């Protein structure tokens, strides 16, 4: 379970807070879509959860731990992220197998044993993606396409089911076909492993189709929050109307 309470963040030099007192609770296994216009604070929220930025005030609890002050590498043991920027997901100068080994060893002490003993595990995971990546275990990640690298990054993030999975437009830098494929694998795996997930997307059909909850962030506030059957009944037109409502209020200077 993820509990966020009154999380606020104002970047140095900004007059307005990027996140103003955000509260959100996700139950274990919740798959929550996050939408909102550019600059509304979605990535900032995810980066704070990941440990990359420190929030000014607030509380973050994951399971029975208070992780508000934990450094990035400690959270890395149970929080995974995949991002729009393909370069951030994998180590370019390491092979697919070496990258996956790092993910496989996550959350425990490294030993003096060889890291090359887990290849069969990776084969299995990669073949389920149906992208022929199991043939590329010894290829450097820099030699893979964006879609392939993102697939590896996603596999790294979910090799051990994390307690919290953060996806920030992880399909948006890809061509439509790879994007579609990664999205389908993502949704399937999240459901199958029951991983608590926050996923930022600009692709409204995905936001409608997947997940059991949806929030809209506007200027650092959660302005819309639906779940369950209400979320199921949501249409793109309704979502667009929501967007326009907030943009209009922005234009009229009320926001």
């Amino acid at each position, binding site marked *: 379970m993820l509990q966020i309470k009154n999380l606020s963040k104002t970047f140095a030099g900004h007059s307005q807070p990027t996140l103003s007192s955000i509260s959100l609770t996700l139950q274990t296994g919740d798959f929550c879509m996050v939408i909102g216009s550019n600059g509304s604070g979605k990535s900032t929220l995810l980066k704070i959860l*990941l440990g990359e930025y420190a929030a000014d005030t607030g509380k973050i609890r994951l399971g029975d731990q208070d992780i508000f002050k934990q450094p*990035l*590498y*400690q959270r*890395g*043991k149970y929080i*995974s*992220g995949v991002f729009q920027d393909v370069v*951030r*997901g*994998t*180590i*370019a*100068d*390491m092979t697919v197998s*070496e990258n996956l*080994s*790092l*993910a496989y*060893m*996550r*959350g425990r002490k*490294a*030993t*003096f*044993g*060889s*890291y*090359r003993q887990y290849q069969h595990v990776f084969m299995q995971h990669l073949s389920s993606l149906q992208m022929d990546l199991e043939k590329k275990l010894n290829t450097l990640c820099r030699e893979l396409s964006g879609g392939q690298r993102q697939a590896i990054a996603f596999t*790294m993030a979910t090799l051990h089911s994390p307690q919290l999975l953060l996806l920030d437009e992880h399909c948006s830098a890809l061509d439509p076909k790879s994007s579609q494929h990664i999205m389908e694998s993502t949704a399937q795996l999240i459901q199958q492993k029951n991983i608590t997930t926050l996923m930022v997307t600009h692709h409204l059909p995905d936001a409608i189709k997947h997940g059991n909850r949806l929030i809209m962030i506007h200027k650092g506030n959660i302005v819309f929050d639906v779940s369950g059957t209400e979320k199921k009944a949501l249409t793109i037109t309704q979502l667009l109307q929501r967007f326009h409502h907030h943009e209009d209020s922005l234009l009229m200077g009320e926001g």
Partner: protein
Amino acid sequence: MLTTWINLIPIGIMQSLMIAFVALGVMIPFRLLNFADLTSEGTFPLGGCLCALLLLQGIHPILAIFMSMLAGGLIGTFTAMLHLKLRINSLLAGIIVSTILYSVNLRLMGKPNVALFNQSTIFSLFASTDTHKTILLLVLNALVLCAMYAFLHTEKGLRFRAVGLNPQVSAQQGINLTRYTLMGLAFGNACNSLSGALMVQMQGYADIGMGVGILIHALAALMIGETLTGTTRLWQQLLAPFVGAVVYQQIQGLVMAMGLQPSDFKMVTGAMVLLTLAIQLWRGKRLV
């Protein structure tokens, strides 16, 4: 001239087999961790001075070498901490620590140089002739390189490399960057001190000035080595300091045979570093 050079070759090779450890000590943090560490200028003479003192105390030469390496390794972690915790620029941290070590070394010895008399050294114990010394040093190099190669293929070694290649992804994979940076600088500076300790046992004395210019020497060796061996594979990167040290020492021998003064070496070394950089740039490879 040629005969002078040829006469110098065996001595040069022995010399370079000791310097190779500093080149390795510079390479490990620099290339594997992406941390430019200048502490060798202090940990090389520290290894030498400490080893001389330990030998004079009657400590076994092998134990003396290990103790010197331990001291160098500890100093390496100190440089790393200055950078990681006090956020001092890594180059500056190395310069500060080397400067401090100069005084420490002088304090340790109590005078600018200390001579060994009949103290046994690893050479007097295990290798009496020059050929034997060369073989002993070759074996030592091979041992250290194999150990490093093996380490880099363990789980710990994989994390170590990851930290150098991409700290951001590494942290996300739950890797403690501080721990591995400390480890890398400890490795590197243990190698630097090993080199100093060997040098002292070979030449029979320690001198406070023995570290002056060692860094640029090691860097020149490393870069020449990288130009020759390439750096795409791990074993090439590991072999580069060794190959470079040997080749560079022979270039020096040649220069000396041509009648240049030892005091001109620094200029030659600087020119070599620049030349190697130019060649690497021309080949489109990475720069320092």
